[in-house]
């Protein structure tokens, strides 16, 4: 019962709290997810492959993963910049900007979705500016990416910010005293310790983007094969009572995200080892 010779635990509540946690986790999360895997496994290999390789499924997955990747890259750049100015510079409204960065965490996705659609529609504030140049955001794949940038931004900022705050200024000053110019200092002294946090933020933003639904569907246009995201395809299959079809797309999304995140984490781990602060 108690491994490693724990005859008795001094602090109370081990069994109670473990029991509550594991029971709730199993009932709410694990058993339902197992049902998904079971359902898609019961479809049979032939059907599974057929659904998985259908042009519509592939297009939806490509859009969801591609847009999430693009958005995460944009967020890595701008998230790092925002974290940098919040930590390093003092300017009027700094606290306000700091607070507003969390807006995507707090704002319901459907609200964000209709707001973004209104702004980027051809007659919206931004859409009207872009339209004459032939740039269409709303109802195109670009719109999907814009929504995912909105959703993912705080993940990068909030991952990088605490690390940037902890960075010792002595490192930077030492490098400057040794005669390195500013760009070289940033590139060789500041960026390496920030990279793990940046990758973490990137992965979080990416993972969130792949599965995002509410903020995307209003701006995406939802044209099959063009601007239809994978989560929407699941909803459509469900509305057609095609449970197997929905389950297969769902499992594909889970497996692909898992593989990509695992890969990034492995890269991350080997990187940390190589710079020796694992």
């Amino acid at each position, binding site marked *: 019962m108690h491994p490693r010779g724990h005859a008795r635990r001094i602090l109370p509540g081990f069994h109670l709290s473990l029991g509550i946690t594991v029971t709730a986790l199993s009932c709410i*999360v694990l058993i339902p997810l197992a049902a998904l895997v079971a359902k898609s496994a019961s479809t049979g290999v032939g059907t599974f492959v057929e659904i998985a390789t259908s042009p519509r499924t592939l297009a939806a997955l490509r859009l969801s993963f591609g847009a999430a990747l693009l958005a995460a890259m944009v967020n890595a750049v701008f998230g790092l910049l925002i974290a940098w100015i919040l930590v390093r510079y003092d300017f009027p409204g700094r606290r306000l900007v700091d607070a507003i960065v969390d807006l995507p965490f707090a704002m319901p996705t459907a609200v964000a979705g209709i707001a973004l659609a209104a702004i980027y529609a051809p007659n919206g504030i931004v859409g009207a500016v872009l339209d004459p140049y032939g740039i269409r955001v709303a109802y195109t794949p670009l719109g999907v990416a814009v929504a995912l940038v909105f959703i993912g931004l705080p993940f990068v900022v909030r991952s990088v910010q605490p690390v940037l705050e902890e960075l010792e200024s002595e490192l930077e000053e030492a490098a400057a005293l040794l005669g390195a110019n500013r760009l070289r200092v940033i590139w060789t002294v500041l960026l390496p310790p920030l990279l793990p946090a940046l990758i973490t933020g990137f992965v979080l933003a990416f993972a969130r983007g792949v599965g995002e639904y509410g903020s995307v569907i209003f701006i995406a246009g939802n044209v099959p094969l063009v601007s239809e995201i994978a989560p929407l395809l699941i909803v459509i299959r469900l509305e057609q009572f095609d449970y197997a079809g929905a389950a297969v797309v769902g499992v594909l999304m889970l497996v692909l995200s898992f593989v990509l995140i695992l890969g990034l984490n492995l890269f991350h781990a080997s990187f940390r080892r190589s710079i020796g602060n694992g």
Partner: protein
Amino acid sequence: MVDSARDRAPAARQPARGESLAVRVVLIGIALAFVSLMLVLPLLSVFTEALRKGWDVYVAAIREPDAHSAIRLTLLVAAIAVPINVVTGVAGAWVIARFEFPGRNLLVSLIDLPFSVSPVITGLVYVLLFGAQGVFGTWLAYNDVQIIFAVPGIVLATIFVTFPFVCREILPIMQAQGSADEEAALTLGAGPWWMFFTITLPNIRWGLLYGVLLCNARAMGEFGAVSVVSGRIRGLTTTMPLHIEILYNEYNSVAAFAVASLLALLALLTLLAKALLEWRYADELAATRPL
């Protein structure tokens, strides 16, 4: 997910080093432009769109019976989901922060799992489990229990989506504080529950409140998962976000934005409360250093 240790010591912010004023101004300018375009503009547009046809239309959209029942349902779902997640979140943080046991790291990952599962997949799994063709579908139909396309399904999906919030917020605080306070209470003769309510709970109160705020914001605003399991029966199983979608798809944009503005206000209040808590937090976290 939101790092609570952030900004704990505003005084620790270092003065600008290195960059010239021009570079600084340009960098701040770019960042502010990005924040304005991506975050501030959408937020403002919610309110301008909602008030586009004046105050009376706005109020009428909110007073409308379907809007009313959507608000009631949203509050009901949050009132059930949030307390459940408080109990499981506190229990999870306690067991992870205070005990060594095999599978501890796995448990941490599993508690975080809902963060990386698409909300739509969350809805899907409940449909596969409790839907008409689902694993328990026949049994539920026979016993006349409705979960999918009904309130229980909405509550379940909401609990799934918000499962990690409370635990994530209080776990780092509990770990930073260590168990000396609880051990002291026990040696002074406190019983387990006495210890919990007089020592453990007060020690995590601000983190817990913050976790509850985030959990609540997400519970009231959840769209994807709820939309799959609700069936969108107007006036019965539509929460506020679903009601917004219905209105928007009916080209009743003003009404949609009017309801959305309520949720946007909730988001703003959450951010405000968070900013205030971080003030408090600054002391609390500083106080986690041993006295």
